[in-house]
């Protein structure tokens, strides 16, 4: 791909370097101390934060229970198709849940605008903030934002205590070299732009549901 022409690049860099030659006094710092309280019970904390973030988190024992949970979430939704990340574990889950809806897999393209729900995996769950971490590998960018309901199928083993751990794993695994996109999602889409009153479901999902399985089978 052609390089972008940058007539001002060198001039800006030169100005920056010239500016930085001016010495600036560094104020005294107190010794570093612990910023966030350590998280001793990640699962409990994750569940608490989910409540605070207005997310739904259903703890399930095994794949069959997860499939049942998925049916329970999908059943009351208005008629229409659903979108799923094409992954073996989700194919198995859908086989068990057998929803009577048109299914579009991520290998068939991005979710349709009218999708009623999207079902994806997550890279990790973060206890500190009650967040799910997704990347482009989790069904793409639109999979977590286009439909009114986003369902995440995850296991307790994916839980990390805090943001620092999640981000350092991402650096170590070079996730952002393999994905053009990643997002830490902490609740459903929302706004408080009118009189600071919270409205759930702005441009993205009104519901974010985590089906959290304690076993890996």
């Amino acid at each position, binding site marked *: 791909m052609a390089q972008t022409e940058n007539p001002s690049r060198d001039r800006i860099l030169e100005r920056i370097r010239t500016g930085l030659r001016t010495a600036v006094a560094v104020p005294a710092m107190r010794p570093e101390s612990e910023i966030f309280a350590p998280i001793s019970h990640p699962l409990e904390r994750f569940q608490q934060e989910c409540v605070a973030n207005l997310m739904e988190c259903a703890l399930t024992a095994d794949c069959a229970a997860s499939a049942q949970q998925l049916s329970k979430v999908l059943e009351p939704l208005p008629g229409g198709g659903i979108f799923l990340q094409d992954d073996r574990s989700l194919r198995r889950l859908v086989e068990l849940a057998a929803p009577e809806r048109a299914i579009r897999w991520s290998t068939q393209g991005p979710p349709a605008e009218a999708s009623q729900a999207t079902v994806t995996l997550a890279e990790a769950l973060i206890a500190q903030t009650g967040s799910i971490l997704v990347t482009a590998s989790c069904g793409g960018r639109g999979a977590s934002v286009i439909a009114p309901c986003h369902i995440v199928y995850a296991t307790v083993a994916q839980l990390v205590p805090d943001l620092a751990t999640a981000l350092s794993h991402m650096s170590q695994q070079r996730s952002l070299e393999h994905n053009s*996109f990643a997002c830490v999602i902490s609740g459903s889409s929302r706004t408080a732009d009118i009189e*600071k009153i919270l409205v759930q479901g702005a441009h993205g999902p009104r519901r974010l549901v985590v089906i959290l399985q304690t076993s890996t089978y």
Partner: protein
Amino acid sequence: MSATAAQRFLQDAAVKSADLVHREIIQRGMDSYDAAHLKGRARIKDWEAARQKCQAIKREAINHLDRYLLQFEEKVISRGGHVFWAANGEEACTYVKNLATRLGVHTIVKSKSMVTEEIHLSPALEKVGIKVWETDFGEYIVQLRDEPPYHIVTPAMHLNRAQIAKLFREKVDPEIDSDDPAYLMAAARRKLRQAFFSAEMGISGANFLVADAGVIAISTNEGNGRLCTSIPRIHVVVTGIEKVIPRLEDLAVLWPVLATSGTGQGITTYSTLIGGPRRPGEVDGPEEFHVVLVDNGRSQLLADAEQREVLHCIRCGACLNICPVFRHIGGHTYGTTYPGPIGSVLTPHLGGIKEFKHLSYASSLCGACSSVCPVKIDLHHHLLQNRRNATEAGATKSSERLMFRAWRHAMLHPWIYALGGWSMRKTLRMIYGLGLAGSILDPMRVWNLHRSPVPLPSESFRARWRKGLGAN
């Protein structure tokens, strides 16, 4: 002759501070922010340690700005993205305009970005016939009203639900029959969905540019930023050069601190990282990814030993929210892209000290702004420095200079000072006695126009001192 920025500021401030509806809306908004902010801070074990850490991260980034920007650029280009360096707003606007024209763009969806406001990007694009949709709910509201954002985080906080419902009836759908915020949001969602799915280009800002990972970080709650950067085939990021941070792990503290200071949340709902266009094998995402790095006066601030740290700002809005001046006069009165304390410090650097020096005086120097700043910018001292800089640059009126010269002379010659005090007491007593307080003849007119005169002492401080005040 048109009014100067300072004259407009004074006129608007007088009108706004007497507007009772505005006062009530802002009071309610700020009360709700205060409660959320305090609750949010309590979630962080050591808030002062968090502020210090953020300050250290930003200092490290700004003090090695060239190195981190080049690291970021290299990564983005290696993934097939483009990085354009714009010396000023005009260069940035021309780049985006040419790109849009070359790629056949008719519709653009935009997520919130104060830098695009600063460089007036939307008007530049609309001039060449491109439709630009602001998609943040608050930004959409102020766009419909054809006015700039009122606040850098909550652009429409100066309006109540009834005013917004009326606006929507006039501009969006005449059938709107409720002022319920959820109902109004749903109406905006329906309208903007069409825009998201028809736009060829999405424009976003960036809260951070992560140097080691070569990604941009965007924090949004509504999901509009996600849609702008997922659906259209081109994604353009317009951001300031000072947004860079060294490491991905730095976000572990910056994200919670930004959210806490901005809205009181533990973390913003969507904390997104984007490093380039859609990769081979990915389901969706734009085919083109461009980052426009805007200088527009920022590199000059680096050479200012006292004020370089102004570039540490993460645009959380906390200093606006706590500022007693902002709370009374509101965001639009400032007449600047960035209102409130940070705007009063920054604007003279971007727009000229002569035209914007008055902003440095729109402060009681109470220091509330500095006390809440999550990156510990010493805002109120910078306001004081701007006052000094304006004087040294000769930006003050000759009458003001003359008065201060006279004052200095009097302070160095006690008998002149005593004489001045005596004559002032006599004159003011006469003027007040004649009922002329606040009139054109009153030397204290500026004060007395809006207030009752301060009672005059019967004798001078010296006389009272001689009578034993000192002994007591």
